């Protein structure tokens, strides 16, 4: 099945030639294009749009559908190609980073494997269950779904995830990362951005930053492992009161505040502090390392 509909360029030019009016100006500055083809449920889909927005929704059909609204269509071109196993689409522009904003609304089979590249474009993803890999420079990324594998990266955009999945990774430089949900293997890394993880059950969890804040709240699996590493950013762990774990906290120049097991006092270690204790049976592990960032251990 294949359908195609676009506003002819000649019509837009003709509209622009008419006297005055915002409608005409709008018609010349944007072009709307639709494409739809049948694809495999686990097809690979590559989307390339530097500026504007990309919205991808999973649906229960073996079809990919896209509605593209292209800015400055005289310079920018929407490309779309591929077959049942894979589709590639995006905006091709001689302006590259100065590409006029384009807006793509894409519907894909829920199990499709997705790859998206953007610069400033806002990316919104929902209802996806396959592998998802997104790379952006400064665009915000929002994900809501249960992915098989999720990898989101942006430099100074923010990442907002609500997900349950076996493998989740989020990375920024100065952007913030917020993750709600559960995962078998979760990683969040920033340089100066804050990390907030609101767990509804995570097994292996690694949070790393240099100067951002690290906040974790919620349960950890009985055999789970949580590690947090920071240079100067504070690490704040709000843990379930019934967590049985081995705790290993060290800060070279910072302080440790233990509200989880207040009877356990941190030991002085040079300019910093360290705290090691086990809540039996202690099958989980909580490891925190900072250089000078304060560590807060609290009970939920």
């Amino acid at each position, binding site marked *: 099945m294949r359908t195609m509909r676009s506003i002819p360029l000649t019509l837009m030019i003709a509209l622009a030639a008419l006297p005055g009016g915002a409608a005409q100006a709008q018609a010349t500055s944007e072009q709307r294009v639709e494409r739809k083809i049948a694809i495999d449920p686990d097809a690979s889909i590559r989307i390339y749009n530097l500026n504007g927005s990309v919205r991808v929704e999973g649906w229960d059909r073996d079809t990919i559908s896209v509605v593209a609204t292209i800015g400055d269509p005289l310079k920018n071109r929407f490309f779309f190609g591929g077959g049942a196993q894979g589709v590639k689409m995006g905006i091709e522009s001689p302006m*590259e980073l100065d590409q006029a904003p384009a807006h793509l609304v894409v519907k894909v089979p829920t199990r499709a*494997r997705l790859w998206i*590249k953007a*610069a400033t474009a806002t990316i919104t993803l929902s209802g996806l269950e396959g*592998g998802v890999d997104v790379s952006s420079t400064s665009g915000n990324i929002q994900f809501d779904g249960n992915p098989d594998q999720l*990898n989101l990266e942006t430099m100074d955009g923010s990442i907002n995830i609500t997900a349950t999945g076996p493998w989740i990774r989020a990375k920024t430089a100065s952007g913030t990362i917020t993750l709600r949900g559960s995962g078998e293997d979760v990683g969040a890394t920033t*340089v100066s951005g804050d990390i907030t993880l609101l767990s509804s059950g995570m097994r292996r969890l690694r949070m790393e930053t240099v100067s951002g804040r690290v906040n974790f709240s919620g349960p950890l699996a009985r055999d789970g492992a949580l590690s947090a590493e920071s*240079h*100067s950013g504070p690490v704040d762990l709000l843990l379930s009161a019934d967590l049985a774990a081995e705790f290993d906290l060290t800060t070279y120049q910072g302080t440790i505040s233990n509200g989880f097991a207040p009877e356990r006092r941190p030991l002085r270690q040079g300019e910093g502090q360290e705290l090691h204790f086990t809540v039996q049976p202690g099958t989980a592990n909580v490891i925190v390392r900072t*250089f000078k960032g304060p560590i807060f251990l609290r009970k939920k």
Partner: protein
Amino acid sequence: MTCLELFDYLDRYHAGTLSRPEAEAVEQHLLGCADCAADFRFQRLLKGKTVALPGAIAPEHELWPGIRDQIRGTAAVAAGVRPRWQRTPWLIAATIALMGLSSAVTMLLTRTGNPQPYVGTQDFQSTEVGYRQAADELLRSLQAHRKELGEPAFKVIEQNLHIIDQAIQETQAALASDPHNQQVTQLLWASYEKKIDLLQRAAHNVES
């Protein structure tokens, strides 16, 4: 599995720590992707070289020239005129080369029997020089492609590199007065790795 997804698996594939389905996914991708297969062979070659080294020999004497040549060699191929999204991913190749360096450093640390070499030892200096060279090489490459990355993005990267460099300096100062502190040494390596990771990601943004 996409080429980028493969990056996260290759080190663990080499280390034999992937689950069977994950390992099969890696192999399947390598069978169908000539570029990744070539990179994989390069990594395996690097690994072979590092395994052959005695534990006390610094890795960069053996590895760095090859890595540097690989980066420069692939960089020389990069000056194509294809559309941005189709260009030869030379920085990705550089990234993989640097992953090889990271693996080599990790292997060195593991093999010496002492998890972290102390400040002032040859192992420590070699490791730090390796990280610095890797970061410098990536930064030079990135600066050459500054326009393609975009000035605002480049400034963000510079700001974050500055934050990491400050962290490195503070950690180095701490080690100067407490040279046997294993955890501070670990934090130092972690900061270097974050620097390289940031530069790698910026490289991907230019070329992917």
